[in-house]
Structure formats: C-alpha cells, structure tokens
C-alpha cells in the first residue's frame, strides 16, 4: 500500500510538531508549575482546588459583624466560589488582636495589612453589618520568606555562583588548552590519553567521598567554593576536552597558517583567528560547566558543611518536616533562574554566525 504524498507530508509535519511540543512541554510545564506555586499564598496552596492556571494578584476579604463586640473574617475561595472563614473565630476590636491578625494575614494570605488598617475595616463592618475589601497580594513574599526561613540561603547563592564561575574558568581554560593540543599536535599515546580523561567521570562521587574530604581538608579547601569547584572541574575538564578538541579540529589549520604568513606570530594567530572562531563552542562548554556545577547536589552535600551551595539548601528544604510547597517552589525557581538567565546570555555566542553562515 502506498500512502499519498500530501498525506505523508502532513503526517510528517504533524509528528514533528507533536515532538517539538512534547519536548517544550516537558521542559516548560514543570517550570511553569513551580513558578505559579511560588506566587501562591499558603491558603491558596492548601485550601483552594482546583488551582488557577495563573495565580491571582489580589485577595478578597470580608468582615462580618457577629455581635457588637466581635467580628469575623472571611476570605473568597476561588476554587469553590464562596466565602470561607479565615483566621480566628472572632475578632475583638483591640490593638493586640489586630497585631496578631496582621501577622496571620502576612504569613497565610501573603497580604500586608497594618493593625490600624485592620481596625478601620473592623470598624466599618461594625457600622454596616459587613464590609468587603481587597488587598494586594505580595508576589515576592515567598521568595523573601524562603531566604529568611532557610538561614544562609542568600550566602549559599553567592557560594554557588563563585563555585560555578570558578568551575567555568578552570575547566574551560584547562579543557580548552588540552583540547587544542589534542586537535593540533601529534604525539605518542594521544588516543589512549584522550580516552582515559573520561575515566574520571566513572567514579561515583559517594564512593570516593572520604578521600575527597580528606584531601580537600589537607589543602585547606574543605567547605569552600574553591575546593568544590576543583572537584567539579575534574569532571568538567574531561567533557570540555572532548568538546573543544572537536571544535578546534573543525577549524582548518590553514587559517592559522595564513595568519602566520600575513604577519602574526603563533600566539597572535591563535588569539586573532582560532579563538574567535572557537567562541561558539567555548560558550557551549561554559554553559555546560555552569549548569552542571550550579545544579550539583551530591558532591556539594559531602564537601560542604557551614558554607553549602544553593542546591544543597533547596534540597534540605525539601527534607524539612513542615514541607511548604509554595516556599520550596520559590526556592526551586530561585535555583533555576540563574541557569536560565546564563543560558539566555550565552545564547548570543552559541548561535554566533559569521555573515549568515554557521562556523
């Protein structure tokens, strides 16, 4: 049986579209999911079903008069489309209660209302039987709370950043130089050597944890970004050697020779010709190094104690007994954002084209 050509082409296109969509969804959906959760309040996270696709930016409250002295607070539940009691059973109109309620609304509703504002709302409810008002939801609150709650999270970001940048520096420079040598020079045992650099990637980090801790301790680098970046670099250099070797192999030697003839010395030829042509590849290396060191948990868990990296903090927050999904979501987004940002920045170099032709 032969399939008609237009039908075949349509099927082909559809399959491709489906494939691309699937890939996009598997990447985008978790990110989107985490992102919406990171913007929700505690109440929205645990009491509202189903979840909105896009979180609300405002919270609707209603105060109802119960008796001349007491009032109660209700919140609009978007899931069930009805008012539901929120907070204490009844509110007396005094300073102490207003302060407590203000803190409660901050923590569980992600809304900031000062005690005096609350008292004025209570007053209005007392006057007219009930009173409805909306409050602006603070979108950054979960992030702030994550960093306040898990102490050292802010420092951990700095540690992670310096670890990642150091890893890029070490692994791209060393890996790149080795890659260049593998691409351009002929020497004994080249293939064996090139293959054997991959062996370092075969050891499970847990298996060599103790020696790593001891050695880093002796070097005075235990629990420091520098020490961690050394460990990451060992793995990453192997990868970068392979990537850069093939990049340099793809750049014809005659381009360098031409530079030599037209007045450059060997170093000049490398920096003016080969390096600029290798930039896209090196950018890919840098990106790969950044992401793998930024997201690494196991080695970081073993090799840090008081100066953990950010993924370790996020990991530990997941283990916490009172798992607060919206806070963890905020932490995860905080973790993913720099990697995404870095990728977007480096994309310019990754896709660098010289006059419309990819090199």
């Amino acid at each position: 049986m032969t399939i008609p050509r237009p039908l075949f082409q349509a099927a082909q296109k559809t399959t491709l579209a489906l494939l691309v969509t699937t890939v996009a969804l598997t990447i985008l959906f978790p990110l989107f999911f985490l992102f919406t959760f990171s913007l929700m309040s505690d109440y929205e996270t645990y009491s509202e079903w189903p979840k909105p696709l896009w979180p609300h930016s405002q919270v609707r409250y209603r105060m109802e008069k119960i008796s001349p002295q007491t009032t109660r607070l209700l919140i609009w539940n978007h899931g069930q489309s009805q008012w539901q009691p929120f907070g204490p059973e009844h509110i007396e109109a005094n300073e102490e209660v207003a302060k407590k309620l203000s803190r409660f609304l901050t923590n569980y509703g992600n809304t900031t209302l000062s005690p005096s504002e609350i008292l004025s709302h209570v007053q209005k409810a007392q006057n007219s039987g009930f009173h409805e008002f909306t409050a602006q939801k603070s979108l950054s609150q979960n992030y702030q709370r994550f960093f306040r709650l898990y102490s050292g999270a802010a420092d951990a970001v700095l540690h992670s950043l310096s670890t990642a940048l150091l890893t890029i520096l070490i692994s791209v420079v060393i890996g790149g130089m080795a890659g260049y040598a593998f691409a351009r020079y002929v020497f004994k045992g080249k293939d064996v050597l090139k293959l054997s650099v991959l062996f370092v990637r075969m050891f499970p980090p847990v298996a060599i944890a103790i020696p790593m801790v001891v050695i880093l301790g002796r070097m005075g680098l235990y629990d420091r970004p520098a020490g961690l970046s050394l460990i990451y670099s060992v793995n990453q250099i192997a990868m970068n050697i392979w990537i850069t070797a093939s990049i340099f192999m793809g750049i014809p030697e005659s381009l360098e020779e031409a530079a030599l003839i037209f007045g450059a010395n060997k170093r000049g030829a490398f920096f003016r010709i080969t390096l600029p042509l290798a930039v896209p590849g090196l950018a890919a290396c840098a990106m790969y190094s950044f992401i793998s060191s930024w997201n690494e948990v196991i080695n970081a868990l073993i090799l840090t104690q008081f100066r953990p990296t950010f993924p370790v903090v996020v990991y530990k927050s997941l283990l916490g007994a009172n798992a607060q999904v919206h806070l963890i979501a905020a932490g995860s987004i905080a973790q993913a954002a720099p990697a995404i940002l870095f990728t977007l920045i480096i994309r310019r170099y990754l896709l660098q084209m010289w006059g419309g032709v990819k090199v």
Partner: protein
Amino acid sequence: MTTLTLTNLAKRYSRSVWGVRSMSLDVKDKEFVVFLGPSGCGKTTCMRMIAGLETVTRGRIILKGQDITDLPPKDRGVSMVFQNYAIWPHMNVYDNIAFALRLKNVDRKELNQRVKKVAQMVRIEPLLKRFPGQMSGGQQQRVALARALAVEPRLFLMDEPLSNLDAKLRVSMRTELKTIHQESGATSIFVTHDQSEAMSMADRIVIMKDGEIVQTGTPEEVYFQSANTFVAGFIGTPPANFFPVEWKNGKLEHPRFQLSPPPALHQAIENHGKNRLILGVRPESIQVVREEEALFIAPVLVVEPQGSHQIVAVQVEDEVVKLIMPPACGVQPGELLPLTFDSTRLHLFDEESQLRIPGY
C-alpha cells in the same frame, strides 16, 4: 637579477617519506614561475618551505640576498594564496585584506587606500563589507588574491589557487592573474598540476617528479625540447606518443616502420652512440597522407571530437597512438589511416636513461 634561490632544498617527513628530495632553482625578478607535476610530487611541500610553514631538512632558501631558511613566516616578506583560500570566515572582506597591514601599523589613510587599490585590481570593490560565507568560490578566491597582494610581498606564492573553480571561471581567472601579475610586477611562484594552466601562464615552467626537478624552461622549451620521456608524456593534450625503436644502418627501425631521420638528428644519434632508443612524436606531428607516402597504416579505434579539432586514436602494434586531425574530416572507427611523421619535430630519448639525446 635573481629574487629567490633554492639550493639543494629537501624535506623529509619521516624515515621513508620525502616531501622534496632535492631542489635547486633560481627565480628571476618579476618572473612568473610555475611548478608543475603530478599529484604528490612535492609542489606544496616546496612552497610551504619557502613560506616558512614547514621546517627544512636540508638546503638553503635565499630571498633577495638574505638567507631566510630559518626565519619565521612573518619575517620573510612572502605572501601566499592557499589551495583552499584560507580566508578568515569571521572577518569581512575588508578586514581580511587589511589584516596584515594593521599588524604592520600602516596608518589609517594609507591602509584604506591600499585595500581599495587591491580590491579594484581583483574587482571585488562592491563586496568589501561582505563575509566570506556570503560569496561564491570565485569571489572568495579573489579575496585571497587581494589579501596576498595587499602586503606588496617580495615573493608571491600561489598553491593551486584555481583548482576549485569551474572550468570557465578558471580560464578567465588565468588571464586575470596574468594581468594582475603584469600590473603588480610581483615575483610569483604558481603551483598547479594542470599543464594547460602552466603552459598558458608561465614565464618559466618547473616540472617536478618524486620530489625533484625534472626540467626547467619556458613553455616552448618544455614542449619542444622535453628533457625526458616523463616530460614529453606529461606535457601536451594529449601528450606525446612513444615508439621503441632501434638504430640500425642509419635508420630508426620499428616493427611497423623504418624511418630515416633528418641530417641533424642523424648526427646526434651517431654521437650518442647507443642503439636502443625511444621515439617521441607529438599528436600534431603525425600526418595523414596518401597511401604511397605513408610510413605505416593503422586502424582507427576512437574519434574524440573537440570542436576546433579531433583527437583520433589509432592502433600501432599493441599501443594506442593519438593524433590530431581537423574537425569534420569524416574519419570512422575501423577505417585504415595511412600515416607519416613530421620529421623535423621528432624527439629521441635513450631507452635506458629515458633522457633526451642531446645535440639536435
């Protein structure tokens, strides 16, 4: 005045691989010399040694009285057009051409002028802002030329610069290169394995084989005075035909014919004093005549029309002999052709050494 002198230049890549065995050559001022030879004979190697891209195993390279054998490439005052152009893809045409001038700190105004001048010479002025990836092969090749011309080199090397072009462009570029050479007056060495390219462009042709020079001479010399059977069999389209002959009783004897050579040749053979010889005859020196005048008669195998002429292959003994005939002369395969040689245009070689017999 000589520009370049090579003395016993040799390059050995590894124990058994020689790139160039021994080359000695003088290149005169403003001369256009072509290195010609089959693939793998060491043309590129020689050129790379002159440019300084390859270390020299033995011998010296003297340029304008200066020994440059061990100088780094940038100090040699030599520029080169690479076989694959090697223009830098991340720079536009202007920057490609200006690269060398910038490194020499030529001032802005002069740099601009010189770039414009060479761009005009190779006719790529409108393309100065383009990147190599946006140009055709022929245009890229002009950029490579312009880049090499811009530095006003003491010596201009070209390694098969036309080999990647289509047939038509190649022929027109030949003429252009020749014009550019005359305009710029740069001493040039041009490598090719295309002998018609060599014949049409060269002031002097250097024919190479297995890393050595076989013959050096003007296109006429290598064509009419080929130094050995290799040269005679390499130059010409189609190349010379060979007949093993024996010198007997004042005649050249071949199983199919007997030939009395003209007096000068007769004398030369006598002086040479050997009997076993090889007779070389160029295709255009074989003539179709009336049967009574024929030296021998041979059956036609193939007729290859070329437009302006026809190449006719005939069978003589076990050999295929090619000759040139005017177009539309109505020769058919299988036909018997009465043939003779133009006796003033014969080449004779010693069978043992394959060298040309001197003195005629």
